[in-house]
Each structure stands twice: as C-alpha cells, then as structure tokens.
C-alpha cells in the first residue's frame, strides 16, 4: 500500500475550499444551536466566535498588533456604515429597549464575532484567493460568502445589503493592507445595532 501524496499546488488550491467548508460548517452549527435552543444566544455567539477564531488561526492567520494607520481607516469605514443606516432610518430611531446591564457581555461577544469573521474572510481566505485568482476574485468571493453566512439566521432579504457591505469591507482591506481596518469597521457597525 502506498501513501497518496497531494502535490503542493493542489494542496494550496484546496486550502480556500477547505476554509470555506469549515466556515459553512461553523455557521451551520451556530444556526442549529440557535434554532434548537441548545443554549442562550450569547453562549452560542461566544462559541461561534471562538470557533471562527480557531479556524482562522489553524489556517495561518497570525494575531498581531494592527498597524496604526489601520485604526483611523477602520473607524472611518465603520462611521460611514453607521451614518448610512442612520440616514436611511431617520424618524424610526428610538432608544434601546434592552436592559443596559446586558450591554457589556453582548458588546464583547459582538466584537469577538465580528473580528473572527473578518480574520477568516478578509484575512486568510482573502489572502489565499488573492494569491491564486487575483484581487477582484478575492473581494467578490469573500463578499458573497459574507452575505451567505448571514442567511441562516436573518433570512435571504439581507443578502443585497450584506453583499454591498462585504465589498465595502473588502475595500477597507485593500486600502489599509490588512484585516484590522475591516474588523474595526465591522465591529463598530455591529455595536451600533444596540442603539439603532
């Protein structure tokens, strides 16, 4: 019996596919856990964020200090997302009705989930696709995947908006040269939902 060896080029080609499968799997598990009420939403969110983080690290995403210039780019990108949502819903905005004590744990897990999603999508997956297929394919594929992973919990109607936001986050990734800027923008937009 001889061992089957996969050529290095094929292995490299399999990596984005394997990563996408892993991402879909983790998203599917989160959906099943939520719908099946296996635990409360925050615990499921924590597990989801950690699983994505593990996936990103396993596929070679280092966790290091972001470059200083990424921070203003990320903050600006997030501010644009929030501002657009505020303008689109003027007159419908009101104070958050959720208990204030719940904010901190919710915010922590929201930031974890947003950052982990970015480390996988705009981090390792973007890098792998960019190397093999070019920047356009990387932006498009990660944006489509970004939109699709939100469908199980939120429905198909979010796809157009999430697709556009995915492209925006891809632009931030290109402009800053790293994953920190889209992570900051993503986290900022998600945190704003507490008030919006």
């Amino acid at each position, binding site marked *: 019996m001889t061992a089957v060896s996969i050529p290095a080029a094929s292995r*490299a080609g399999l990596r984005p596919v*394997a990563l996408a499968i*892993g991402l879909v*799997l983790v998203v599917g*598990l989160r959906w099943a856990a*939520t*719908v*099946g*009420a296996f635990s*409360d*939403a*925050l615990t499921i969110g924590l597990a989801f964020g950690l699983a994505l983080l593990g996936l990103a690290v396993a596929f*070679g*995403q280092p966790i*290091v200090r972001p470059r200083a*210039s990424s921070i203003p780019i990320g903050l600006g990108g997030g501010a644009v*997302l*929030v501002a*657009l*949502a*505020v303008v*689109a*819903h003027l007159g419908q905005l*009101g*104070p958050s*009705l*959720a*208990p204030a004590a*719940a904010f901190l744990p919710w915010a922590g*897990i*929201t930031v974890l*989930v*947003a950052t982990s999603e970015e480390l996988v999508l705009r*981090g390792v997956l973007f890098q792998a696709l960019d190397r093999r297929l*070019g*920047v356009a394919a990387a932006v498009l594929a990660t944006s489509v995947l970004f939109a699709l992973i*939100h469908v199980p919990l939120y*429905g198909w*109607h*979010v796809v*157009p*908006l*999430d*697709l*556009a*936001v*995915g*492209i*925006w*986050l891809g*632009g931030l990734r*290109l*402009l800053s*040269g*790293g*994953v920190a800027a889209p992570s900051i923008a993503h986290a900022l*937009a*998600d945190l*704003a*939902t507490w008030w919006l």
Partner: protein
Amino acid sequence: MGPRTATRARGAIADRRIALVTLAAGLVGIVAVQLLGPLPTPPLYDGVVPVEAYLWLNPPPGEHAGAQGKTVTLPVQGGSSPLIAVATPELTPQAQIFAQPGAMILAPGTKSLTVTITPVPPDAQPTVGHLAGNVYRITIVDQSGAPVSALASAEVSVSLRDPNLTASEATMNRLSNGAWAPLKTDASGLGAIFNAVVTDFGDFVLIEPGESPTPAGSPGASPGATESAGPTVSTGPIPSAAPVAPEPGIPTVTIAAAIATALVLVALLALALWPRRRKRQTWGDRPRSGSRRRRR
C-alpha cells in the same frame, strides 16, 4: 528615482486606485439597497442577536415560564405627550411600545401617563391560525385612569416577539369586540420580532397561519383545558421550532451529526496544518493585496 523605486510607486498608486474603486462600489451598493429596498430595521450586517428562550405566562411542556410585564409612569409637560419607549424586561423584549413625543391625544389638564404592558390569558381564540406566544395587554392611561389613544399620523408602534425564531408569517392582532382583528404587520428580521402601527390599545397577540403544532389535549392547544384563575394560564401553542423534548437525552441523529462534524473539522485542521511554506502575514505589515511588491 531608480526604475525599481518607480515601479513600486506605480504599484502603490494602482493598489490604492483598486481599493478606492472597491470602496466606491460598496458605497454605491449600500446606498442603492437602502434606497430601493431598505430593511425594516436599521443595519443588519451581523451582530449577535441576543435571543433568549421565550417566556410563557403558562408554559407548554418543555418551555419556560416567567413572562413579565412592565409599568412606567411618565410626566406630561406643556400639554404634549412625552417619548414613550416601554418594553418587557427580557434581554430581547417580548412586547414593546414606542411613540414619538406628541403622539398621544391628551385631554386638557393631563399631567402624567401610565404605560402598562401585561401578559394576560387570551380572551378569545382565532378562527383561522393559532396564537403564537403570550397575549399582551397594553394600556396607556392618564392620571385619572382615563385611556388615551394615539394620532394616526404619529405611527405609534407595538412590537411582539414570536416564540418561533424562524417565524416569518405571523400577523399581529388586536382584540376588538371579542374577536382578533389583524393589523398591518411588518417583520423586523431580527429575533422574530413583528411590528404594527396602532392608534388604540388593548390586547395584542401574534397569530400564525395553520394548525397549532401542539398535540390535542396538551395545555397549550386547548383553550378549554388551559383556562384557570391566576397567572398560570396557557396563552398559546408550543412554538414549532422550539424543542418540545418529550424524552430526556440527546437524539441519536444529533450525536451522529456531532461526530460527523468533529471528523470534518479534524480533517480541515489536518489540511490547514499540513507542512507548507508559510508566508508570514500580519494584520498590517505585509504586501498589499493584488501586488507581489513588498512595501518599503
């Protein structure tokens, strides 16, 4: 400037141009979506929807009890009603009312408004469909106990959460003359919340189409079997997506799915950790995408 430096500079400009074009495309897309088909609630890029188990006034088997109400008294100043934003105290409120300042029709001399949301037993069953979740009685009265109503133009909204997280077709109803009257209902898309604009208050509930998923004779299905005195009255059916869990233990199919998932994850991990030439990448300090050129 040498030829290599010039090439690098041109590459950086091209990278920046690609980034700006991508950002512009994303921005145009977001604006277009917001203009053509805005979502019923503000931004929905992601986030953790803090959906907790639905709390029932009188829970069907396997469900959680503990539905709560809320009462708030608000001062009236200048003859105009204040901002009203009252919700039941769950992490994801199960019932909410929201009214902009000046939304209420007030009698002269009104000094305060008391807003009350209370889960109550159902006074009626729907002729079509089934009740989804608790019935909530929402009242707004002035200091003398006289009820107030809202201006139609003020768009006062009532929101109820469906116990079924995947519900998409629920309709909010208001009890009128002993029967449930449907209201124009919008789904928020987050946590199975449904909204309706109201002018009068009273008993509100969500009604889903089709038969109740609760087996006949169980506390949640039969109003005759459920009504009793006090707060332990069942107010609706078992949500279709919530676990009924008639038997203890984990189903075999769940165990099999978990094992299969673990195997796939191990395989993915093995593939990821396969010996390879690592190119170090960081959050920031690495070549820009789309170019093989290294930054200075």
